[in-house]
């Protein structure tokens, strides 16, 4: 197991290198000079000033040199400085990553609670109005644009009822609406997967055996059926978690939740390449780690799965 984990962690190195190279290549291809874009619409600075800023940020060197320098500083744990604020990319991202983590875990909590409940409910009431209603609800949630749902939530709970704040990331109260919005959207996929996975398991012989030996329906469902139905659910959960940690871009913008998603959108608009690169690297590493965690969870759920 330990060898497997180390091997997977080593896999991070080519992933990060690949991501860095790709993002850097994109930077060469995308039109628009970051310094020029920073001052668009203003009286442009004189050439000497632009050259000086370019030099300070190392943007005057040929692209291959910039790339090697960037790789060197990335190895030292530095991701450069933001073109716009000149602050360290590491600082800009770490401040916001805490918020993104918080939102991701809170949303996941909502998604698991709602998604699993809906999925189990639909499965055990298969082909009844409860099943149909649950799945219609899940389909409705699945096809709803996140920004629209976010605005509806704001309109109801913040503007009309005034129960919760519209925006910001200052307190747990500010977390409720974005987490519930994001969690409810994520729960719809979970509900559908849980339902179909549970239906497979409910027909299995060991479930019939569990019923036959006199266990209560509740114990059969929660201890025997659900545990075995969870493997595909965990896979989806892992993918969703990766997405949530990568920054729920739209939701962060709608609720002014100051996470990496919001930062990334602004950085893209402003061609702040060091920030974009930093965010992409952090998101890529997050995905790899989450996938590793998912794989390890498989073996915890099903002892037949062994990693060597």
């Amino acid at each position, binding site marked *: 197991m330990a060898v497997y984990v180390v091997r997977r962690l080593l896999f991070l190195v080519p992933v990060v290198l690949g991501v860095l190279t790709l993002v850097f290549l994109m930077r060469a291809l995308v039109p628009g*000079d970051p310094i020029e874009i920073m001052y*668009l619409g203003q*009286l442009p600075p004189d050439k000497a*000033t632009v050259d000086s800023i370019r030099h300070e940020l190392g943007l005057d060197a040929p692209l291959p040199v910039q790339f090697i320098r960037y790789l060197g500083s990335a190895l030292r744990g530095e991701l450069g400085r933001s073109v716009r604020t000149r602050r360290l990319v590491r*600082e*800009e991202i770490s401040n916001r990553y805490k918020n993104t983590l918080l939102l991701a875990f809170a949303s996941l909590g909502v998604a698991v609670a709602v998604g699993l409940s809906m999925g189990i409910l639909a499965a055990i009431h298969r082909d009844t109005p409860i099943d149909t209603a649950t799945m219609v609800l899940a389909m409705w949630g699945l096809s709803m644009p996140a920004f629209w749902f976010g605005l509806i939530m704001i309109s109801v709970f913040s503007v009309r009822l005034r129960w919760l704040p*519209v925006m910001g990331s200052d307190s747990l109260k500010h977390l409720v609406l974005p987490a519930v919005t994001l969690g409810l959207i994520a729960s719809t996929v979970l509900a559908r997967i849980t339902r179909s996975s549970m239906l497979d398991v409910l027909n299995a012989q060991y479930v019939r055996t569990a019923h036959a030996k006199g266990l209560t329906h509740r114990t059969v469902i929660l201890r025997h059926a659900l545990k075995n139905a969870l493997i595909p659910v965990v896979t989806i959960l892992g993918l969703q978690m990766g997405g949530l940690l990568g920054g729920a871009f739209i939701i962060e*913008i*709608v609720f002014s939740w100051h996470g990496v998603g919001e930062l990334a959108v602004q950085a893209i*608009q402003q061609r702040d390449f060091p920030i974009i690169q930093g965010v992409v690297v952090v998101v890529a590493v997050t995905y790899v780690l989450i996938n590793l965690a998912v794989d390890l969870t498989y073996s915890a759920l099903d002892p037949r799965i062994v990693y060597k």
Partner: protein
Amino acid sequence: MKRTWLVLAMVLMFGTLFTSPGWLSGQYATAQEAQKGGTLRLVLGEDPDSLDPHGTISATASGVQGFIYDRLVYINLKGLPAGRLASSWTISPDQKVVTFKLRTGIKFHDGTPFNAKAVEFTFKRLLDPATASPARAQFKEVQDVRALDDTTVRFTLEKPFAPFFTNLSTSYAGIISPTAVQKYGKDFGRHPVGTGPFKFDSWIAGSSIILARNADYQQFRDDVLNKGPVHVAGLVFKVVPAVGTRIAAMEAGEVDLIPLTRESAARFLNDARFQVVTVKNAQNFVFIEFNYKRPPFDNQKFRAALGWAVDKKAIVEGAWGGFATMNLNPIPVGVPGWDDKIGKQYGIGFDPRKAASLLDELGWKINPSTRIRERDGRPAKFTCSTYSGFETVKRGCEIIQANLKDVGMDVDVKLTDFGTLSAEMPKAQFDFDLMRWTWSEPNILSLLFKTPGWRELYTDSELDAVLDRADTNMDAKARLDTVKQAQTMILQKAIVIPILTDWAMTAAQANVQGIHLDFFGTIFFEDLWLKK
């Protein structure tokens, strides 16, 4: 200015005319009636990059800096420079030396005394190439700044420079504390210290900025009623990039003032919970500009023909929802030198017949089978480019497309994000575009049209000479005559087709009192107070 945050910041900076009758009749509260305390909650479209006036020229940052740093002069209600930290000044006969007398007894927020040395320090830092200040270009004519004694400072200019006083009144010319710069070094932009009505309190990167009332503040502007410290206890700026969120926050009572977009304005106009400030003489203008290097747009007559085919009123109504003033002058309505008569006499209005006849004259004839004009076998198929993310300019382009179809031109609309669009423009790979600029100084004409033009596509020595005269004449009235002459020339040459100036609108909660505006339409925060 095309970008959302910039537009929003400019709207906050330039308010102009309140639709609520109180503003029109001057019924704002006097300093004696105002209630003290409370925090005004405002929004920013983005987190400012720096609060060092020499570290940024972003309009968002400038909007916040304006509260922290006072300047030597301000522009009074007549549009003329008046003393703020400077009590008076003299200009040498050759108009190249300006000597300011400074006020005394003023301290920076950190206790450092304000004096001529601080002014010298500020401008020497701004002009030092090592500072690499993006604002240096606005003071490039300044050769030397010297403190002659504790209260006298002398600016020596390379040549007379008409925008000098306006530039001195901007936040980029805010006077900074030399002690604080020495203390914080490169981090000064995160610990700004000035002499302004608000002092810096805290900044949560990406989230909010808090400013507190400067209890020692003395106001020297004649157009501000409150001569002492501000009424409110402080300002909180919240970073809210999404327009929809900002509107919801206003409706939920979480913020006190927000800039309005065309789409959101109607929602607040007839709601008693809010007041709406409408600035009709705003400092922006929307226009069609061309790729002057690509035929047929190198031809003045063709450009004029295209202009005559465009229904400006339809764009005001259809694209801006009526929240704009048709403007046929190549300068914003709120900038000194704008004169309705010029637009009326030389402007390119809406006359499709004239457009058609000009096109016929140029040899662009309708092909009966396609209904599209052609010349030498080339069909009149063009692209109207504009920047994405703004419904107004997109709809504007669509109306232009329909108008031009009526005179036999087949036009595609191309939306590109602003960064890409402006990067592509100097490569001269486009036909014409719909653009919007915001600037409060008549030298907007030089910024846009002086060789090589803002996108390096236009050269005109005759116009350059007139613009040079306008930029070097320090006699305000005589200068404006030259500015008018330049506008006439631009219209006669059909360099651009001006369309409109959109209104800057701000919504305020009903309890925000004391609102009135300066020459540029900026709300005086020094006079604002919150009714309990």
